[in-house]
Structures are given as structure tokens and as C-alpha cells.
């Protein structure tokens, strides 16, 4: 289980004359095992949406709940993948992945197979004892995804996870994430400013307006993807050349253009 519900959420930063309304009347339901991407111009508050689900920030009005429980603090049921990876530099790959399980007071014998599974899932077996600074950006983000997956979280929150990677690595990671999502479906809230990335990865794409951030539209991708059998294309560039993909992308792009 893992459904996210934004109910009439406002977010205001600052106080007095320096007050800034970041988000206004956000209503969104992400169903269990659904992959929803939020796209929007920079500064529209899309990252704030994710940070509130994570419990790093609280809404100024309205509520956000996961499986009907209102969020009050961060927790391992809502694993976060950060843009800047946020790995512990003094811990090995294994140590980073293991941290969340140790926090659950899971005995070593029980942790080991889970950690091995996560390492294998992200093709990290040969780097288990490496430290983050010895790895490339793409590898570091694999570790961060493994660290989130190993917790078996109800929802996975990804904040522009591939934003700090170079173009080639980014494509590899996007394909990887699609593979993962099929292998092991999860509720995912994914923040990005790349429309292509959103259309390629998500079941639905929520488009946000500029300040105050509002959801101005939601585009269903999954229906088109299934009807047009995108999954038959092995590679990301093949999917992106399809007419149905181009059509969706330009529609969302036009909607975003109005905001700039």
C-alpha cells in the first residue's frame, strides 16, 4: 500500500511583509503503485511539494497524507532520493545502504540478504566496499536509489534525481528506473523540469504554474503508453521518436511555455 493525498495544501514562506506564497490549493492523489511526475518552471514549488510528503516541511494549510495517515515527520516509509545524492561520505556503499535497516534494529543475518539484493538490483555488487567519492555521479545515484529501495518504502520520493548527471548517464538511469518500476512497482512521486523525462517515466504528469504554484493540469500518459505499446521499444530514443510521445511532450511543453 502507498497512496499519497494532497488535500487543499497551501505553503507560505516567511512572515510579515516578506511573505511568499509558494503553493496554493494543491489537490492531488497519487494512487498505490502509481508513478506521478510533477513538472513546472523553476521556483514553482514542485520540490516543496515533495519535501512536505517527506516530512521535511509542513503545509501552511491543508493536509498531506499517506495511506490516510497525516504526515508529521520524516520516516522510512517515505524514502527520498535527493538531487545531490546525500550519501554519507564516511560510509561505504554497503554502509550507506545498510543504515536504514540498522535503524529498524534488524539483526545482521536478516540485513545481509536484503543489502545484497539491493546491491544486485542496482548493479553495485563490485562496489560494495567503495566510498562514495570513489564513484561517478551516476554510480552514486544508484547507491542512493538502492538505499531507498532496500527499505521497502510505501512511497518513493525522487527530487530531480538525475538533474546533477551528464546527459548520457541520465539516459542510462532513466532506462534503469523504468526497468525497476516494472520489476518492482512502487508509488513514486518524481520531480523534474525535463518534460521528456516526465513523459518517458510517469503514468501521469502534473503540470504546475508559476508563483503561486498551482497544479494547472494533469496529463494521463499510461493510457497512451499502453495503447501505443511503448514498452516494445527497447531504447529510450525509440520511444521518444514515436508520434504519440512527441504529441504528449509538445502538449505539456506548450502548457509550460505559457508560464515563462
Amino acid at each position, binding site marked *: 500500500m502507498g497512496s499519497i493525498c494532497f488535500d487543499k495544501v497551501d505553503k507560505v514562506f516567511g512572515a510579515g511583509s516578506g511573505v511568499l506564497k509558494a503553493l496554493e490549493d494543491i489537490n492531488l492523489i497519487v494512487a498505490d503503485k502509481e508513478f506521478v511526475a510533477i513538472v513546472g518552471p523553476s521556483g514553482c514549488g514542485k520540490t516543496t511539494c515533495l519535501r512536505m510528503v*517527506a*516530512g*521535511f516541511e509542513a503545509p501552511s494549510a491543508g493536509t498531506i497524507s499517506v495511506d490516510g495517515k497525516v504526515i508529521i*515527520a*520524516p*520516516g*522510512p516509509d*517515505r*524514502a*527520498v532520493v*535527493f538531487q*545531490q545524492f*546525500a*550519501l*554519507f*561520505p*564516511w*560510509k561505504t556503499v554497503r554502509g550507506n545502504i545498510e*543504515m*536504514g535497516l*540498522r*535503524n*529498524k534494529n534488524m539483526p545482521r543475518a536478516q540485513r545481509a540478504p536484503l543489502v545484497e539484493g539491493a546491491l544486485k538490483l542496482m548493479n553495485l555488487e563490485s562496489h560494495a566496499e567503495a*566510498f*562514495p*567519492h*570513489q564513484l561517478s555521479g551516476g554510480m552514486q545515484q544508484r547507491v542512493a536509489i538502492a*538505499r531507498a529501495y532496500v*527499505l521497502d518504502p510505501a512511497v518513493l520520493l525522487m527530487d530531480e534525481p538525475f538533474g546533477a548527471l551528464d546527459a548520457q548517464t541520465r539516459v542510462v538511469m532513466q532506462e534503469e528506473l523504468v526497468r525497476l518500476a516494472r520489476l518492482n512497482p512502487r508509488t513514486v512521486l518524481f520531480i523534474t523540469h525535463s518534460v521528456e523525462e516526465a513523459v518517458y517515466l510517469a503514468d501521469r504528469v502534473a503540470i504546475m504554474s508559476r508563483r503561486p504554484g498551482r497544479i494547472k493540469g494533469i496529463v494521463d500518459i499510461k493510457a497512451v503508453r499502453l495503447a501505443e505499446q511503448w514498452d516494445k521499444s527497447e531504447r529510450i530514443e525509440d520511444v521518444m521518436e514515436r508520434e504519440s510521445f512527441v504529441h504528449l511532450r509538445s502538449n505539456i511543453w506548450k502548457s509550460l511555455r505559457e508560464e515563462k
Partner: protein
Amino acid sequence: MEPRLQPLETIAYGAIGLVTFFAIWTIVVLSGAVPHTFLPLPTAILTRFTFLLTHSFAGATLPQHLLASIDRYLGGFLLAALVGVPLGLLMGWFRWLDDILSPIFDGLRFIAPIAWVPFAALWFGTGYGGPIMIIFAGAFSPCLINAHRGARFVNASLTEAASMLGTGHFRTITEVLLPASLPSIVAGLRVAAGLGWQSLVGAELIVAANGIGYMMVQGQANLQTSTVMAGMVSIGLVGFGMDRLLRLAERAVGKRLGRPA
């Protein structure tokens, strides 16, 4: 700043500075402008220094006095580090603790360690406890402040990552804040080591029956300025050595954390 010099050049310039310094000193004394008892010759200090290495003065040889001092010093310094660093980390994590303790420590840290001498003697005696308290007073603040600042300025995404992984307070402090603040903590220990060593000698000038400071006071009482100077030289040498050791530790910490200092 100008570009770095070659190591040999650095050593050569350092030697030029030292030689000039001692040359001027010698000329001033030999010219008769200052009596020998006011300022002994560098050579006289060296002679006295080597003499004191093997001959007892004020109840012990120079190495014995130094050892007594270092013994006290280590006690006070370790105590300051063992209390100051954990407390600083706790204050960096728990805002309420910071709010309670900061006003107190912010006031206390401006009191010179020597000012505690009367109370140190009264509460802990003049043998071991009193001097330790004075060293502690000197070394505590930098330990606390650097651990506190280190913990406070840890990259927010690391503490957020820890919290989303369900990390409890204790583990967040020991496995996230402590390693993240280690460079700042070691820099604080370096400052604390220097301040503690200075405080120690000040303390021994007043309260102790042995130690390098005590030896210097006895030298002063006997108008043996060369003994006082020999004491000052050994204080400088030991301080310099300790600082070098801690600098190595600083570099090792930087390397271990993947960002060479």
C-alpha cells in the same frame, strides 16, 4: 598571496629569520645596553638548558619537570575534549540545549583561565586537580565551540537523509554529526591544545610544587634568568611539537573523509 615556495626555500627563509633574530639579540647583550641578568645571552640559555637536562633544579631535572607538566596537561586537555566535544555536538543537534547553555558558556569563555587560580586552588588543591581545572578552563571553549559549529553547519541534506532513513538521535549524532564535524572538531582541538598548554604554565607559576612553570618561578626567585629562559624554550618546543602532531591528525582526517586538507 604569492605562489607557494619550494620546501627548501621555505626552510632557507626560516633559517634567515632565526639567525637574524639571535644575531640582534646577541649584539644587544654584548653591546652592554642591557645587563646579562636582564637578558642572558642565547648561548648562556643553551648552556643552562643542557645543564638542566641532567641536573636537578627546584627538586627535579628539566625533563622531570616537563613530564610532570605534560601529565597534568594531558589530564586537563583530555577532560576538556571529552566533555566539550560531545556537549558541543549535543548543542548542535538539540536547539533547546543550545538555548539553555549558550548564554552561560558565552559569558564564561571570556574569563581568562588564570582568573580561576584562586578557586582552582581552593576546590581542587595545588597538586594535580587545581592545575587541571585551569587547563580545562583554557581548553574547554574551543572544543565546545568547534564541535557545536561543526554540527550546526552540517549539510542539511545529510541530516534530512538520516531522518528519512529513520535514524534516531543517538545514531544521528554519532554517525552523521560527529564524522561530518570532524574537520572542525580537530581544528578546535588544535586551538584548545595551544590554549591549554599556555594556561598550564600560567597555573604552575602560581599553584604547583613541580612542573615547568614551577621551575621558572624558582629560577626567578633565585635571579637565574637563564633558567627562566630555558623553561620558556622548552615550553615553546613542546608546544610546537604538539601542534605538528595535531596538524598531522588534521590532514589524516581530511584524507579519511575524501577531501584532502
